[in-house]
């Protein structure tokens, strides 16, 4: 289990011009009363400007980590920094630059969406009251909630509540957004909108730490990924590195399965799996072009040939030893 983390460390270390990190942690650990370790010595490294997918099944420690990052929960051991400031010492200085959605939206039910945002803005000592209404209107517009701004929060649908939570995170220009399951409860259209919003923000230079249990979400919008499993960060790297790290398989579509398998075996390919009308194999150190040449040379009738697209799900199953159920 150490190799993926080591690979990441290498990636960070090898970066010729290490850009700043928006989030770093060192040995961050939370042991709750009762002895249960929710988060176990994790070393996060979220580069500035990244869209970092914080991926893991429900109960793997993502939310506890986020609560620690924001200073809501004290780490048992370890430390961390946000935007170059230590938490909790520098929290008052750096947290205004951080927009957060933690474990779902939470607002006063009897206030309207707009009044709830006013309330949060009033609590922010760095917020300019003169621009409050304009910023609120802008944030509501950004999440498509302008029409429901005057409606009481208690009458909001789950999707509208989620949008209001994101609007709250966008009340100020932020350098870092920490979004915990931002597409929870949204319909497919809303999910698309939120993902495109996150991508837009990231394009504008905002670093995004996005926790999710959806692999597809990570594949669609993230540049980096950290994988949590039972409180441990079992992998962390750029998404492309993680893909490249995984063993490449090739697929040969042919009626002559035995003949093709013999050729592949001769070239040193392993784990040859014959299917009904094709077979797949681990490429290993062989070159794709050499395989094609050999197949042609051996007169194997080939209908199609190519690398098998890397399925991240397989990667994560390998890393975590299980699928995306609920961690115990």
């Amino acid at each position: 289990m150490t190799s993926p983390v080591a690979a990441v460390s290498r990636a960070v270390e090898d970066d010729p011009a290490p850009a700043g990190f928006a989030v770093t942690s060192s040995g961050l650990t939370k042991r709750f009363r009762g002895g249960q370790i929710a988060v176990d010595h994790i070393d996060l490294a979220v580069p500035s400007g990244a869209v970092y997918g914080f991926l893991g099944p429900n109960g793997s420690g993502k939310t506890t980590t986020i609560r620690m990052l924001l200073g809501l929960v004290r780490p048992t051991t370890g430390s961390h920094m946000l935007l170059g400031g230590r938490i909790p010492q520098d929290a008052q200085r750096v947290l205004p630059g951080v927009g957060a959605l933690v474990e779902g939206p939470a607002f006063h039910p009897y206030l309207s969406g707009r009044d709830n945002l006013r309330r949060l803005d009033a609590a922010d000592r760095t917020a300019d009251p003169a621009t409050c209404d304009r910023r609120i209107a802008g944030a509501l517009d950004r999440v498509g909630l302008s029409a429901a701004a005057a409606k009481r929060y208690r009458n909001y649908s789950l999707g509208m509540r989620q949008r209001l939570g994101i609007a709250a995170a966008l009340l100020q220009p932020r350098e870092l957004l920490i979004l915990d399951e931002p597409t929870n409860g949204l319909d497919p259209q809303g999910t698309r909108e939120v993902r495109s919003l996150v991508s837009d923000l990231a394009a504008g230079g905002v670093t995004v730490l996005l926790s999710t249990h959806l692999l597809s979400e990570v594949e669609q919008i993230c540049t980096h990924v950290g994988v949590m499993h039972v409180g441990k960060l079992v992998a962390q790297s750029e998404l492309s590195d993680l893909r490249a790290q995984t063993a490449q398989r090739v697929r040969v579509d042919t009626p002559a399965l035995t003949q093709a398998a013999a050729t592949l075996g001769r070239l040193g390919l392993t784990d040859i799996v014959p299917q009904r009308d094709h077979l797949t194999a681990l490429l290993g150190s062989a070159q794709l072009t050499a395989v094609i040449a050999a197949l042609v040379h051996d007169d194997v009738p080939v209908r199609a040939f190519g690398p098998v697209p890397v399925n991240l799900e397989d990667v994560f199953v390998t890393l975590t030893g299980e699928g995306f159920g609920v961690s115990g």
Partner: protein
Amino acid sequence: MSVADSRPTTALSVTVARPRRPSSRFLRSELRLIFGRRRNLAGLGVLAAVPIIIAFAVRYSSARRGGGGGPGFLSQATSNGLFVGLAALTVELPLFLPLAVAAISADAVAGEASVGTLRYLLATPVQRPRLLAVKYLAVLIFTVAAVLMIAVVGVGLGMALFGAGPVTLLSGTQVSTAEGLWRLLLVCGYLVVCLGALGAIGLFVSTLTEQPIGATIAVVGLAVISQILDSLSQLSAIHPYLPTHYWLAFGDLLRDPIATDQIQLGVFSALVYAAIFLTAAWARFATKDVTS
């Protein structure tokens, strides 16, 4: 070299805004939250209903009896409307006022925790001591509003029904209406100090739980038990230490000259209670894991 070791040595270009001048914006928002909530307005309505009921009951009945265990003001209500306000405060002091203060103070932190807004306030960020300070200030302002409202409604309606005139103090001396009103204001101030201590207890209890109703019940229960213990003469040794013991001493403000010894002890007791429980609330809340 681990990831942690490779933490950036160069500081990020943190362009984070600095806090503006101290402003009452958060406090005003807090007050809007309290006074904009229908539940609280209904509670204030109940508090206001008592002087109204007293005024009309006295006006349309011939029975003249003393008003409960405190200084008897009802009998004087017909002579001067001012006493309706005093009678209402006396009647509401054992239960209604503590209930109102308990509901607001117990809701302060536990209410935010129960709906989950606490985590967003803290992440905004609001410093925890600042949150407690604003919450407690709002509780005090609510207490002032509640006490003054009872007095104003009582005096206003009382004077409308019975007129104003010289006020006969408990010591028998007569003073002018203006002097009477001043004494009533002193009574209100004293009650705010007493109830403010209860508010501090409520704020502390509020940091212990995520259930505002449970916290409210605990605080009201405490006030009631304190009064029960205070009524048992066998327990007179502990009476001076009970949080409610000096509450009814406000009658001393209606003597001529004002008897200050009990009042002073009452203010002292309230300040000590407030100091202890505000410190406890801070100690509890400053390092608390917010998992709601």
